[in-house]
């Protein structure tokens, strides 16, 4: 079985690529979604909240199948890779929007009102006052989410994306040794999540050191 370790390891690139690309899409799309979900206008707020709730209430596997097997019926044909990246990216935007929202409410109204009192424009308040503070507050939670997205990317194997888990499945069929194969695959996932966990813990403790005044 171990002669196939190289073949399995070649799947790391795919797993990381899906995770990074989906995370980037989610982090970007999550911003307008989070802002809209806190809007003062009901017509903006309600659709945004509904989108977030629906995206989070349907399991990712269902979204993947819906896009991969369902959408071709209406003429939208995406390959396995594109389906995995776009679908996981869009569903991530809902989870990340919730993380941003949590960060907003954690900051409190004071910062927003104080910057308004100073006469900053809305754009400047967002860019120079809110965003830098928000980034610090939400980055540990975002790192935690990145780890769960890494694991979530294994779902891509079910629609034929040749990443880590898919390669593990092939090797286990070829060798008949599912136990060793998936232990190897599992160890690779653990190793992949270690750097992310380490970074999140470090950022977290640095933030705590900075803010634990009171």
């Amino acid at each position, binding site marked *: 079985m171990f002669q196939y370790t190289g073949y399995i390891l070649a799947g790391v690139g795919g797993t990381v690529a899906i995770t990074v690309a989906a995370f980037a899409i989610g982090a970007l799309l999550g911003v307008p979604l989070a802002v809209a979900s806190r809007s003062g206008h009901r017509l903006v707020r309600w659709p945004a909240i509904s989108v977030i709730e629906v995206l989070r209430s*349907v*399991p990712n596997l*269902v979204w993947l199948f819906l896009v991969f097997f369902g959408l071709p019926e*209406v003429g939208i044909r995406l390959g396995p890779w594109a389906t995995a990246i776009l679908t996981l990216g869009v569903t991530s935007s809902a989870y990340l929007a919730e993380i941003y929202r949590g960060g907003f409410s954690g900051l409190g109204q004071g910062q927003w009102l104080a910057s308004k009192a100073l006469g900053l424009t809305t754009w400047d308040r967002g860019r120079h006052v809110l965003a830098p503070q928000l980034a610090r507050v939400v980055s540990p939670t975002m790192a935690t989410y990145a780890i769960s997205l890494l694991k979530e990317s294994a779902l891509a194997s079910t629609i034929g994306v040749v990443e880590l*888990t898919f390669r*593990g499945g092939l090797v286990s069929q070829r060798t008949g040794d599912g136990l060793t*194969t*998936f232990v190897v695959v*599992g160890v690779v996932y653990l190793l992949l999540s270690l750097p992310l966990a380490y970074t999140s813990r470090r950022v977290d403790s640095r933030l705590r050191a900075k803010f634990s005044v009171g």
Partner: protein
Amino acid sequence: MDGFLSDLQVLGPGLGTALQLAGLSLALAYVLGLVLALLVDARHQIVRIAALVVIEVGRGLPLLVILYLIYRGLPQAGLYLDPMPAAVVGFTWSIGAYASEIMRSSLNAVPPGQREAAAALGLAPRSAYRDVLLPQAARIAVPPLMNLAIKAFQLTSLAYTITLSEVMQAAYLRGSVTFEYLRTFVAAAVLYAAVAIVASLLVRRFERRLNRHV
């Protein structure tokens, strides 16, 4: 519309299986979580480390890989499990690891003054745990544990990959007969979302009731 309704009907039994899987593994996972949470503080280092490994591996591996490990890997060691028992074991491990983390952090979230006050009142450590710390920790732990239950229900879709006849398998089979994958997967999505949204509304209500007396 008729097709959609009959799709929902076809998926019904799958929903039953999914709820069964979620319910059974949650009951076991909460017990496992509590045991693990207590073992992590055990006196013996070996017990402590063993508990930590079970937790970290359970949280660190994609559930898909855990399921493959049990369903395709264990036969290698002479242990054949049917899809349902295999899914229950995998889910219990994964969900139990998350549950133990929630329980542990809830116990740590009880203000330290409570422990000190219990000691100052002369309560025995056992009584301090049972009458002061655990009730307060339980209050903190219940809402996230309920959210974990919703997550567990959504994850049942993954049991499709080890041939359990839950919602996704029913949907896929149905689609391969009618060739209306889009409609059928939308029906599946509606089922999952309905359960998840209703359940999370209930959790939110329960949370408000819990906090009423605080």
